[in-house]
């Protein structure tokens, strides 16, 4: 999918909900618990069970990024599934300071 900035996506297999903060100009699949995430307004709400191997979970209020692809989402409802893009798990965004040395 090509998600837009500010778009809300929900998990098809658990409670996870995220808001898109960054999305490159590319067609990517964001999954949660192994299943593609859906637009929150999509009437065909998903059903299914999360892949037990993808159950790292997400935390409310944390930003998750795919460092290679340029995807960043904000978790607005915590869930149990792993957030991933193209099979690569997203990681919690950490501080991005400029490298410094004396």
């Amino acid at each position: 999918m090509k998600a837009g900035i500010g778009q809300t996506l929900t998990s098809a297999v658990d409670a996870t909900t995220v808001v898109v903060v960054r999305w490159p100009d590319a067609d990517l699949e964001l999954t949660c618990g192994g299943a593609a995430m859906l637009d929150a307004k999509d009437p065909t709400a998903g059903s299914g069970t999360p892949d037990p191997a993808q159950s790292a979970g997400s935390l409310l209020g944390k930003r998750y990024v795919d460092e290679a692809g340029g995807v960043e989402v904000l978790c607005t409802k915590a869930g149990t599934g792993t957030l991933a893009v193209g099979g690569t798990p997203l990681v919690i965004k950490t501080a991005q300071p400029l490298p410094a040395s004396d």
Partner: protein
Amino acid sequence: MNGPLSGVRVLEVAQYTFVPAAGAVLADWGAEVVKVEHAERGDAQRGIVKLLGHDVYSQGSSFFPVMEGPNRGKRSIGLALDNPASRPVLTELIRRSDVFLTNYLPGARAKLGIELDAVRAINPDIVYVRGSGFGQRGPEADKGGYDSTAFWARGGSAAGATAPGAERLTRMPSGAYGDCTGGMTIAGGIAAALYKRATTGETSVVDVSLLGVGAWTTQFTVNLALMNGGPLPENSRPKHGSAANPLSGSYRTADGRWLELTMLQPGRYWPEFCAAVGRPDLVTDPRFADTAALMANAAAAAEVVAQILAARPLAEWIDVLGKVAGQWAVVQNSWEVAQDESLRANGGIATVVDAEGVPRELVASPVQFDQAPPELTRAPQFAEHTDEVLRELGLSDEELIALKIVGAAT
């Protein structure tokens, strides 16, 4: 145990070490410190990769001593002060704080709405504290500074620590050397301001510059230069001892270690020293027979002392000189400082548990209250406490998420 500043709330908008170190000392003393970090980059200190040639990261762990030292005991909130959506949060944090602590330059303070007038308009009683390189007045009030520039270079330490004619300038002996002592200085100022506020109801602006701290530390030679009416004559230290005292100065042992002797009254300590090192003949040597002779012949006496001390290893001198009354010390490296028996006996090394649950050790701040060391907690991870602090301010989860969606909070 409650520290003396228990119940005091400090809001810190500061980076690197100098001013954050003040916040760390206040936290050691019991204050509740909330540190505002840049919403994306965090405290610039988090980007330091090397100091004085040493790698500063702990591989495979979140433990990061460069952050832990000046930030232990605090909570961190990621806030984009340049985003107007963050303003209500900052306003509420200012309203509930006793101390506002910053090292942002005047231009940045004005741009972000955290200048004195703006902060006092929200909280008229807040103690407003500014750490700077070169002070709030004068031609460099807008200029940034580090301890290596404002404290060490401008403040007289670099010149004082470098031998005349040296090939290289002596740099600071440790990272954040001036910042650490400067931060302690700020903390002392804040304590006095809080006392005034508690006893008179009047608040204060507290200003500390790294240049001022630098001049304070070199004041003995600066004051002499002032009395002299000009630069002090260049004075090369003798190879051994000092100009008038063979028992003051550094000497090498047989195993290449240094001893620092500081027996300021040579006439008093010479007989005891000579007896202890097995050279009672030197007491009656006419060159060194009384104080005046000993001080006049200090260079010759120092040569003899150097030969004596170079003949045996450190371990033996610790035993032999341990019995004399005069003052001396082993020159210790940083590991030896950390293991120092007296430092540890007085709680000078404290344990903190890192984010992975591993016990770690840090140097405690040196002021101790009620004969017990402070209990420390680790420094926060970047923006670790944003949600907790925002909820304390009364924000709902929806409001919290809304702030994050617009990038006002992290």
